[in-house]
């Protein structure tokens, strides 16, 4: 049973929504600290452009496309949930999870290729940042997909439909982090 506290909304915003925004805020500063550190290093190490030239921009772009598409699917799930169609919302959430899995599969292939070509996390500080930032991001993708699966199972039964929006917000955040990572790690040479 939920406490009455959870059902109140003195700020005018539903409690779950408010909490998700605070989660996103706390994540922004984590990635913010990491990327700010990377930028400071990058600006003082011109030689890193040679290392960055070895990243595969085509694969990065493909993954960007996959994530953006999955975000669109998450929006569709939200639209269905707003109309009260739990089954449709769940179906779109499963499509989104499909996008997440595709992203992780492509990322694994990419890393496998790079590691077998000798670009490992200890090769150079650029590569350390590359694997650390993208790795933490990939963990967020996987965690988001897990949570989404839980939400989708409930939504299929028509339960807790407001959670479709909450996981959607988180998913957009994960997407936006990648929008920062892609130019910083792949495009900037």
């Amino acid at each position, binding site marked *: 049973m939920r406490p009455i*506290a959870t059902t*109140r909304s*003195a700020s005018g*915003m539903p409690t779950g929504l408010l909490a998700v925004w605070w989660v996103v805020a706390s994540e*922004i500063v984590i990635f913010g600290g990491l990327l700010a*550190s990377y930028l400071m*290093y990058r600006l003082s190490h011109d030689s890193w452009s040679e290392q960055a030239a070895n990243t595969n921009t085509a694969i990065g772009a493909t993954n960007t496309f996959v994530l953006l598409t999955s975000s669109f699917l998450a929006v569709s799930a939200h639209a269905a949930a707003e109309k009260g169609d739990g089954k449709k919302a769940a179906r779109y959430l499963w499509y989104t999870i499909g996008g997440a899995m595709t992203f992780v599969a492509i990322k694994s292939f990419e890393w496998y290729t790079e590691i077998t070509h000798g670009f490992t*996390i200890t090769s150079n500080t650029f590569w350390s940042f590359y694997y650390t930032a993208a790795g933490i991001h990939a963990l967020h993708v996987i965690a988001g997909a897990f949570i989404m699966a839980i939400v989708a199972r409930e939504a299929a039964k028509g339960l807790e439909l407001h959670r479709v929006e909450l996981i959607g917000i988180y998913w957009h955040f994960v997407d936006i982090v990648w929008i920062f990572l892609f130019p910083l790690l792949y495009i900037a040479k």
Partner: protein
Amino acid sequence: MAESIPHEVDPGHGDHHHEDQGFVSKYLLSTDHKIIAMQYMFTGMLMAVIGGFMSYVFRMQLAFPGESVPLWGIVTPANYNALITNHGTIMIFWVAMPVLIAAFGNYLIPLMVGADDMVFPKLNRLSYQIFLISALVLLSSYLVEGGGFGGAWTSYPPLSAKSQYNLTPAGASLWLLAVALEFVAFLLGGINFITTAMNSRAPGMKLYDIPMVIWMIVIASILFMVSVGPLIAGAIMLFFDQTLGTAFFDPNRGGDPILWQHLFWFFGHPEVYVVLLPAVGITAEIITVFARKKLFAYKTVLHTAVGTGVLSFTVWAHHQFIAGIDPRMAHIFTLTTLLISIPIAEMMFVYIATLYGGSIRLTTPMLWALAFIGEFLIGGVTGIFLGASGADVYFHDTYFVLAHFHYTFYPIAIIGTFAGVSYWFPKMFGRMMNDTLGKIHFWGSIVSFNFIFIPLFVLGTAGQHRRIFDFQNFPALATPELQQLRILATMSLVVMLGFQFVWLYNFINSMFRGPKAGKNPWKANTLEWSADSPPPHGNWPELPTVYRPPYEYSHPDREEDYWPQHLPN
């Protein structure tokens, strides 16, 4: 709205709590905010005993170098380093944070905003469980090969990153893991605190009707959340440097050890305010009740606290004046550091103005609250010396710094906690603490505290550096006069630790045998005093409604000198 619905939970016999509940599910796996608060408080106190014992061991080594310390034995240099490192880490992350923010936050937020629980009770329980694991991980670092980490609580690389320097390959990583887990626990807890205070206030409670301690805990939680992110990123980088052999902080391979200092202090300095603000809030509750006066300039205190929070993000590099940062940058950080003393001084003046002309009752909680104001003042004033880059070049890493921040953290973590516990004890356990024993403990602790750290100020100005195992190796510091001061500080510490047994006796004895407190023994206004003592599961049979601000004491239109927030008139 939910408030109009009668409370379904019959106090004490609710859906969560059946009569036949065992000890484990009632006290260890409960989702009740009050039980979780107690878990945080008792874990924090246990860690305080451990952290206090550590300070006893290394102070004995400094007073009587090379001699066997009772209850410990001979202190080796590695022991010494691990003890000072973990003393600092434990006192800040496993004592000040869990007690001031998590315990008081969990206990007070729902009770003071008029809710039946936190908004996410299961998340709350998870937060404590992660916190408990983090404490166990930290303590386990003493048992692994090489022993506990000895690279100081600031964990600067390359000392912390390379096991050939710190000689604690497993201890250093366990230390880092424990700190990271603790951060996760407090992020979860913080989201709960902020959301609960924002969303589940009682009907009628407007923003300026929220008691100051709740505001302070919320602002502190936001500060923590915003400042800790970069350090989490830094901790991952340091962990990879330790375990995978990356070179984020290794200058030989393209890294920069100063980056860690920036990431650490970008968190580390706001962290001071994270623990300070709740203590300031606790003091506000106590001085208004025991001066029977309205809090002077409520809105000013609140806006000042927000201003302090914002400013606290701009001062971090004053910890790095001698780390080789650009002197022009040092000027800027000197300026911001001196600026931040203004809002804090303002709070002090506001509190003095609150006391002025009040009918002051010198109960034990009031003594602690007054001591907080006086002792923190010393910490604040000595901070100005260190904030000025010119003076700091001389004082950096001396015992002057050490004495300065103990004059801030002791008032915060120890005085603030004793103030809060003695004030809310009747609510927490339904019985009164013994006031005479409380005062004996108060005076014993306060006097001996000053006798520990005033000698350390003197030693610091004499040039005594921190983190040195044995000063006998330094002829200029090995003089009998300076050694006398070290012995005085150590003896005062032993006296202070001894006085804590008075408190412990009082605490346990009062919990079971103190006189019954009733709902509102202090005649206070805030909502928690309208609940039973101790409050049942769900807090009130019917949740309260708020009609006025929290500090309406000695109101001219009213015969009684207090006017509880929940009374219609």
